[in-house]
């Protein structure tokens, strides 16, 4: 291939991140269960696959699948007790699980403990990583538009009603958790055979949060969202590196600020439509953070009309003047005037 090794590596990492974000999205975005330990599943898959190829000499394909299976098993073990918990409690339980896994890896012999696991062969390439990412995307598309996916969405929207409709909530949550963990485990195997060295710190709480940021930034619950979120957050720190020396040195700070700004300006994510619990449009409206100029004109037009009617019946020309003023102030230009004109006629007719 004709791309530089630097971009090649970025694309591999992006593919792995896409798998991580899409798999977390199934649990957090679709089913609405906040998990803060997703990186631990990746770690389980990475170490399992890495040990199987480097120590036991198994083939890469077998090791990848075994890594996924091991992560899925842990998903089941963790999911069964914790998914009966709700909201914050589940988040804390998954956070605790993630730390247990990290500390366990740190203290085991077979994993190399704090020295890390060395000597893993380089078997992951962009083709394999990209195929895996596409496969995950495809699986998720199928799942989302199925009886299973609908049930998960129903659980997110209203758990009590979901139960009343005959959905076995715990079973569905656990199943989602297991599928999600399996994919994270496979992503871990790809990760291990790309970097050839594993250290427990790669799978710490901060890594889980980073994956969650990708899902939230891109847009929870949609399929494009996590993909875009993963791509952007993989590339953003690298992009900042090239801006200037100052930005490069403080790039993680800028990266953090970027996230904060994004959540203020577009809390539903880059491509999200806004979900329950994340809907803050009322807050945003009260702060004057309208979606677009045209929306602002329309809303202000409505309130201007109300005010005008309360005062009595002003001539349409007065209303039009107010509207023209609003249109200019909102910067909507000619389209704003168009809306105002239409509204004026309506008023004159009444």
């Amino acid at each position, binding site marked *: 291939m004709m791309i530089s090794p630097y971009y090649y590596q970025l694309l591999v990492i992006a593919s792995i991140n896409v798998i991580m974000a899409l798999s977390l999205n199934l649990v957090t975005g679709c089913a609405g269960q906040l998990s803060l330990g997703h990186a631990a599943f990746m770690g389980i898959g990475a170490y399992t696959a890495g040990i199987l190829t480097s120590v036991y000499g198994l083939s890469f394909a077998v090791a990848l699948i075994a890594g996924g299976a091991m992560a899925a098993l842990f998903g089941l073990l963790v999911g069964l007790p914790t998914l009966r918990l709700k909201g914050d409690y589940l988040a804390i339980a998954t956070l605790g699980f993630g730390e247990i896994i990290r500390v366990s890896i740190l203290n085991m012999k077979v994993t190399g403990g704090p020295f890390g696991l060395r000597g893993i062969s380089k078997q992951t390439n962009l083709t394999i990583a990209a195929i895996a990412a596409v496969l995950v995307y495809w699986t998720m598309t199928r*799942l989302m538009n199925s009886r*299973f996916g*609908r049930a998960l969405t129903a659980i997110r*929207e*209203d758990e009590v009603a979901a139960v009343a*409709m*005959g959905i*076995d909530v715990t079973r569905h949550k656990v199943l989602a958790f297991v599928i999600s963990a399996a994919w994270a485990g496979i992503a871990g195997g790809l990760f291990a055979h790309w970097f050839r060295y594993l250290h427990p710190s790669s799978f710490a709480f901060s890594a889980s949060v980073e994956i969650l940021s990708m899902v939230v930034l891109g847009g929870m619950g949609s399929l494009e969202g996590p993909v875009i979120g993963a791509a952007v957050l993989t590339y953003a720190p690298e992009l900042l590196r090239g801006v200037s020396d100052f930005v490069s040195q403080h790039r993680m700070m800028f990266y953090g600020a970027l996230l904060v700004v994004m959540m203020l300006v577009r809390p539903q994510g880059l491509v999200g439509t806004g979900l*329950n619990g994340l809907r803050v449009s009322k807050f945003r409206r009260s702060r004057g953070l309208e979606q677009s100029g045209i929306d602002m004109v329309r809303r202000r037009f409505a309130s201007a009309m109300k005010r005008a009617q309360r005062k009595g019946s002003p001539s349409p020309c007065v209303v039009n003047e107010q509207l023209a003023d609003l249109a200019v102030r909102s910067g909507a230009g000619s389209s704003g005037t168009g809306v105002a004109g239409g509204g004026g006629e309506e008023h004159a007719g009444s």
Partner: protein
Amino acid sequence: MPVLELRNVSKSFGGIAAVREVSLSIEQGAILGLIGPNGAGKTTLFNLVTGIYTPDSGEILFGGRDLATLRPHEITDSGLARTFQNIRLFGQMTVLENVMIGRHCRTKAGVLGAILGIPGVRKEEAETRKRCLELLDFVGLDVDPDEKASNLSYGQQRQLEIARALATDPELLLLDEPAAGMNPQETNETTELIRRIRDAGKTILLIEHDMKMVMGMADRVAVLDHGVKIAEGTPEEVQRDPAVIRAYLGDEANVVA
């Protein structure tokens, strides 16, 4: 044999007895109206029957089977469906998807089948879709099936809840204030719909504050007050019952004749 039978069912929350020693039974194909002042324990009774709460004492038999042995979602599976007093639709899902959720317990496509898209799953999905569109038609909900449920009007949301409950193929349908907040015309339509559901062979347990609606439609009426069943009988009997009049209007001594 009655479809649903409650035997001396009690439920307390802390020191408050929400439902005390209530016994009730509904015959196949009947409409039983459950009335009573606010806080009388009607919705608690619904939550007991649907398994959201477990009774402190007493038995709830559905088709002769003790519901205490079933988990809440299995109760729906066994043929009992409900609507909610404070509408609980899946707001971000479409109208059609909401009804399709109701078919969940009557369909069986698994995760692997869905991923692989095997013909059986596709067929089931198509049948579910068709069936749900028919149900939307049956309840008279004339909206775009792909519209988000949260965008519907209040009355339409109540209709959608009924369609969703019907999609589970219930034998017994529990309606919690289906006409609350409706205008007279919508109330009439709802009354008509409930009659049609009964005529389709379903048994109905109905909580409703609209007396005219309950009295005009129910075969029997049970009255709850402070968690106790104070009367049961035909609408005429209940309307004449002094205990019922007292519960609704206060003591006779306070009534200026």
